[in-house]
């Protein structure tokens, strides 16, 4: 062979060797590590971040989640169909008129979303509890108490909506498990014991940089609310759809009566000395309401906001033309019933939460017109919710908008789950059930007379009259804060037609007592063969 062909051979050998060696080495390795996400949690900062996402999930409970549904299915709020606007396959009126079934529009849109959102909070907490339990640290007990307390709150909301629900799956599993539901009573006991166990390890208060995190006060407030509803929440069956479901006669942990347990939990908050009623009342809902002394447990919102970290309460209710800066203006949806608006005395400072009559711009203060150029006047009566004019319905202004906020869902007003005033009203209600009308009236008057001194609570009320007065007070105090559905169910009035005039197509549903629990949404039944539909659906 010539030297020429030898050198050719050498060149050829090298040329082919390089790629082939490359191939031999890398040819079968298929392991990829994500570059922009973690697959496990290790450091303290990562643990805090993991817990932060459990808090962040709280946002999902408000807008068309648990909180919105608590009002939308009652006389507090209605979303009329305005032309083609807000028709949305009838989902809004489906919920308001309580025509929901396991697969009606409202169920599939909102109830299914609420189910998933609440369980997502539970799953995120489970994931973190696993991590924290394995990594001892100085703050381990407190962190676990915080996570378990939050998880109990998610379960509270779940059982309020659906009754029984699948129980805890404490470990994160990438093989989803089809677990059967626990009974409502089992969930009640679980929530109760988790909160009681968490309280000693939770701080009474956080330094300012911990504002928003769970405290002893928050856990006690959830407990107080759990106990006052014990006549409903602890019962697997036999909840009355037409009469008051009292806490008396229900025995809870420590062999206490539920009414006494409610008083004790409320007292733990009231007597902590950390909270006081806010004056004026509107201080609780203003754009800087984070500093209100009444807050016990809130969703913290911020205007740092195209990231969706703010609230949208003003936007869902105000008219398009009332705010023109930012994201196309408000949505002109949510309103209240005339009957509900009329419950508010002219002398009660709380009437200020409503917008009726001529509407004004939040930017200029000038009167505004509707989109056809007519002066925009909010009218209380909604003649036909199926074809409403854009001006009908009194609007919420409980959480006044910040015109300079960057986006419509970027309002900085924190949303309160629990305020101190509720502790007084829970205490009043429980005392009334214990037969102590005098003490009950004192607690009720403490709240009412501060808000409406011109028209104080009368003396000498019977137990039944006090019950009515407390329910009315809860409406005045908490309209738009997601309390109404639970209250009406406890009072056996949820299914009523609410108004004498049968307005807005709502029928009297009292012959359908199964509606006091929401249906388990069809997609959940599909995903978990061991789930049972609530009776009656």
């Amino acid at each position, binding site marked *: 062979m010539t030297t020429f062909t030898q050198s050719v051979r050498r060149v050829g050998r090298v*040329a*082919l060797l390089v*790629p*082939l060696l490359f*191939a*031999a080495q890398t*040819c*079968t390795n*298929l392991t*990829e590590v*994500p*570059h922009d*996400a*973690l*697959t*496990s949690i290790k450091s303290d900062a990562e643990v805090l*971040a*993991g817990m*932060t*996402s459990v*808090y962040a999930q709280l946002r999902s409970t408000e807008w068309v989640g648990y909180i919105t549904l608590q009002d939308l299915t009652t006389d507090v709020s209605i979303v009329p*169909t305005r*032309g*083609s*606007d807000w*028709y949305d396959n009838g989902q809004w009126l489906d919920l308001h008129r309580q025509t929901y079934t396991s*697969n009606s*529009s409202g169920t*599939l849109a909102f109830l299914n979303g609420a*189910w*998933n959102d609440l*369980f*997502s909070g*539970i*799953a995120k907490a489970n994931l973190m509890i696993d991590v924290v339990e394995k990594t001892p640290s100085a703050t381990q007990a407190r962190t676990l108490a915080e996570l378990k307390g939050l998880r109990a709150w998610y379960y509270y909301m779940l059982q309020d909506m659906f009754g029984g629900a699948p129980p*805890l*799956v404490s470990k994160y599993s*990438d093989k989803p498990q089809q677990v059967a539901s626990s009974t409502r009573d089992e969930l009640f006991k679980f929530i109760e014991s988790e909160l009681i166990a968490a309280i000693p390890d939770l701080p009474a208060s956080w330094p*300012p940089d*911990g*504002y*928003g*995190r769970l405290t002893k006060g928050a856990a006690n407030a959830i407990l107080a609310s759990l106990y006052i509803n014990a006549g409903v929440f602890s019962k697997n069956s036999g909840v009355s759809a037409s009469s008051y479901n009292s806490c008396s006669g229900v025995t809870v942990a420590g062999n206490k009566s539920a009414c006494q347990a409610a008083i004790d939990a409320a007292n733990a908050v009231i007597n902590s000395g950390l909270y006081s009623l806010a004056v004026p009342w509107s201080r609780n809902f203003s754009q800087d309401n984070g500093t209100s002394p009444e807050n016990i447990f809130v969703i*913290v919102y911020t205007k740092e906001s195209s990231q969706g*970290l703010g609230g949208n309460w003003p936007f869902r209710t105000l008219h*398009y*033309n009332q705010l023109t*800066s*930012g994201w*196309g203006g408000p949505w002109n949806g949510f309103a209240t019933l005339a009957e509900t608006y009329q419950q508010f005395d002219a002398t009660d400072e709380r009437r200020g939460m409503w917008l009726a009559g001529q509407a004004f711009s939040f930017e200029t203060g000038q009167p505004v017109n509707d*989109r*056809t*150029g007519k002066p925009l006047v909010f009218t209380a009566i909604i003649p036909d919710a*199926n074809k409403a*004019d854009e001006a009908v319905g009194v609007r919420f202004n409980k959480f006044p908008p910040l015109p300079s906020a960057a986006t419509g869902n970027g309002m900085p007003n924190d949303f309160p789950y629990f305020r101190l005033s509720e502790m007084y009203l829970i205490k009043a209600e429980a005392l009334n059930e214990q037969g102590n009308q005098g003490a009950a009236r004192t607690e009720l008057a403490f709240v009412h007379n501060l808000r409406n001194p011109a028209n104080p609570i009368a003396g000498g009320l019977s137990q039944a009259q006090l019950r009515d007065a407390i329910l009315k007070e809860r409406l005045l105090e908490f309209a738009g804060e997601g309390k109404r559905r639970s209250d009406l169910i406890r009072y056996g009035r949820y299914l009523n037609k609410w108004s004498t005039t049968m307005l807005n197509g709502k029928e009297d549903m009292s012959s359908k007592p199964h509606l006091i629990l929401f249906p388990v949404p*069809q997609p*959940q039944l*599909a*995903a978990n*063969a061991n789930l049972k539909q609530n009776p009656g659906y």
Partner: protein
Amino acid sequence: MAVGRTISIAAVALVFTSLPQLAAQQPTGTISGRVVDSASTQPLGNVTIAVGGTSRGAITTTDGAFTITAVPAGTHEVRARRIGYATRVSTVTVTAGSTSTANFMLPAQAAALSEIVVTGYGTQRREAISGSVATIDAEAANVGVIANATQMLQGRVAGVQLTGNNGEPGAGVQIRIRGGTSISASNEPLYVVDGVPLQNDAISPDAAGIADINKQLNRNPLNSINPNDIESITVLKDASATAIYGSRGANGVVLITTKKIGGGTSQMEYETYVGVANAYKELGVADGAQYRAFVTQQVSAGKLPATAQSSLGPANTNWEKELMQPGLATNHNFAFSGGSTQTQYRASLNYFKQQGVVLANGLQRYQGRLNAAHDAFTGRLRLGLNMMASRVQNDFAPIENTGGFRGGLFTNMLIFNPTFPIKCTAAMTSGTTATPGCSGKEAGSYYEIGSGALDVRNPVAMANQIEDVSPENRILGTFSGTLGLRDNLTAQTTVGIDYTDASRRTFAPRASPIGAQFGGYARQAERQLQNANFQQLLTYSPRFAANQELEVVGGYEYTKIDNHGFDAQMQGFITDAFGVNNLAAGTQSSSPVPTSYRVESRLASFFSRASYGIAGRYFLTGVVRYDGSSRLAEGHQWQTFPALSASWRISQESFMADKPFGVSMLALRAGWGKQGNQAVAPYQTKLLLRADPGAIYPIGNALTTGLRAAQVGNPDLRWETAEQVNVGLDYGFLNDRFTGVIDVYQKTTKDLLLEVDVPQPAVVQKRLDNIGNIRNRGVEFSFNTPLLNRATRSLILEIVGTAERNKITSLGDALAACKKDGWWKADPIPQCTTYLSGFVSGQGQSNQYSQRIMVGEPIGTFYAPIFLGVNAQGKQEFKCRASSAGCVGGKTTDPTDADREVFGSANPDFTLGVSNNGRWGSWDASWLWRGEFGGKVFNNTALVYQTKSNATQGRNFLKAALNDPDDITEPAKYSSRWIEDRSFVRLQNLTIGYELPSRFVRGRSTRVYVSGDNLLLFTGYSGYDPEVFVSSGLASRGIDYATYPRARTFTVGARAQW
């Protein structure tokens, strides 16, 4: 994997032991000859002559002559091939130092059956292919204004359905080869350019959306490739053909081969065209007079307040007309080729510009390509380089996929009040004639409702003010070396890179109402996609017996995909002067935070194909591919994809020698194979914890990073596999005067990748799982014949047709509860959100779905309340079940979910393409008709905008609403009323060309032509075009919502060759 490593080492060993075979120089000779038309005996230019088994070749000159030098001595098969003619092969013996002659007579024919077809990892003789493979003559298909290669498939290949998303220049295309058989994973085919599989992802970063979340649909990733550089396109349809591409072959494979030049003939070519396009149809919005009259009438009837009349504007503007413009398209191609006997090259340069038929948008492409080949070591080593660099400048119209609440351009075109002017005149700005949308503004500024950020915006202003451009750069290159190890063994190494780098620059100035709400909005996003590919092939073709042939291809392929991106936005500018060029000038730095990401994935494969033929009559092909993907779960990453096919050329049998019934050619093919679909996002198998804005919580009012579980990992995730059986017949009658193909197939997709609800508690609601089966069955045919075949006149007819039926046969057991309750056959059928699709867009349409995925029905099945009519009160009435609330006499005005019924599907029953190619002396003509028959399309646009209730909000509507009896308070309700028949027949293209006599122009040939695209459309559909795609949920199809109108284009062009 142990198996893989062994094969690879074996390959290395084989290559090394073979190296000494590099040999010394061989003696060579020359072949020359002449090619004429068999009928007219006129000389044929532009005929490609190739010497089989070598890289030698030439192209005939205008007098039909050719000369090929440096042909190795020996006996060769010389092939003469020209578009529009059947290929002819002649056996020529070359002796060293002398010239042999080869003359050819080519018969005119449209699609030549006897040809070399590019298949996966090599080429095959057409007659040896036993799978279902279609080829496209790129020259015949490249007529009219073609922005990208995929358009060339339209109407020319049976079994390929191609639906452009809309009429925007460069708009994306939905390609379905033998139908879509996946619900969650991709249904797009695999594109392979010069042997390198492309990553079929959008090159540009996603749009920001107009203050809403509805992004535009992706553009076609092939926009960066010049159609004029394409020599041929091969479509691999059945599994026996695509299985060689294994995990990526399930949706078919499109092989694109770019032009090369053999023989070192020097040639130059210049082509140019100018086109003008216009929207050929109007939706018809109410004009100023109609709207004014309607409002006046409603005011006097007491249904609108008097202010509705007094707030009307002074103008009469047809916003639809104002938005349209004639769109110009220009194209220049310059190519030259040449070289020596050892080195050949072709270089080309392309400039293409296409303006939209709507104001202010379009596409420009600059592209250069160099294809070069070099023979070394006396032809034993052939080196090849294909290199393309291109820049596509996209100028987007401010549109969104589903319009959104506040909408893009077309939403506003439909609703913006026609009594408002486009611009303010001086009189409108002040004084008694001051108009609200103008007062206080300068004369000549755009009319806008109110001053701030309202939902409804002047669409002309929007088109002109919003800037949204995306320059895309792409480098696509392959380098290959083919080494002849022995006479019958070659090794080929290919390294390919597909790198794209695009940015998207969006600016909404303060002067526009969209920008005004943010104080100006600027965004720049970047995206880099990198796809590196390495292939090692060994081809072995022993000749062990006179009448038997065997070819074995074995190889290894490795692909690494590395994509990353970056996105930053800013608001709050003091001026519009900076545009997107100075983000730091903004103030609202907190709003959407900058984001970045990086995603990698890998594929590794070993494959082999063996083809065996006996006596040119019996052919057997076996394929096996062992494929691994990093996207799937460990333990499920590797899978084997086998295929087997056989064909029998019956006409070669002795009993067919006298051509009974005129049968001149008959071949029966049958094949079976398995393909995969792994086109899911990477990392789906893992639990991922992401820090993103949704997990941030303002603890103590300080934003605190949250780690959110972004998905429920599925460690069992595996391939979606499709099995396909194909039986086909190739036929020719009367000496191949009539030829064609018939294929029948069944494709079954198993382990469908489907997003299913996860039982709670779970960190997120849904996850990807392997559930369910889908079946596609179909018949495809093609037929072609010269209607006229004379000396100087010919007319060839080609027909392709497809009928396909798609059916979901299972959605798995995990959804037992749906089935348990009698979900599938129940009466009424309850809902399962997992299977809702085709969400309805528009105001008041939230949580409304038009389609449903269910067992026993095809994908794209419409599910709707049945519209009965409008009652005396102007309310719509629908069919209802007696058990439904509010159902009286079988009618209701508020249908419940239980009242819905299946109302057809979006899939056509039958599609047809008919094309003709004619020649009359120096004149030529071609045309293509396409039709699709059966199937439905949901006119979401009409649902939302053919609604007079828009007037209660001072908004316009389609004038068709004036003639319907609906009351002004009646909301838009989704029902069968808006689901229309989709059938259409379209004259896709008509081209007439003339070859200039050589006495007028110097050079080899010069052709001038006129061409028209989309000239005629026959359809009953009331929207712009029934061929439309809007992405609205899982596997949705056949939905039209406020889309960009399609254009009719007239083109004049010329091509000269020297």
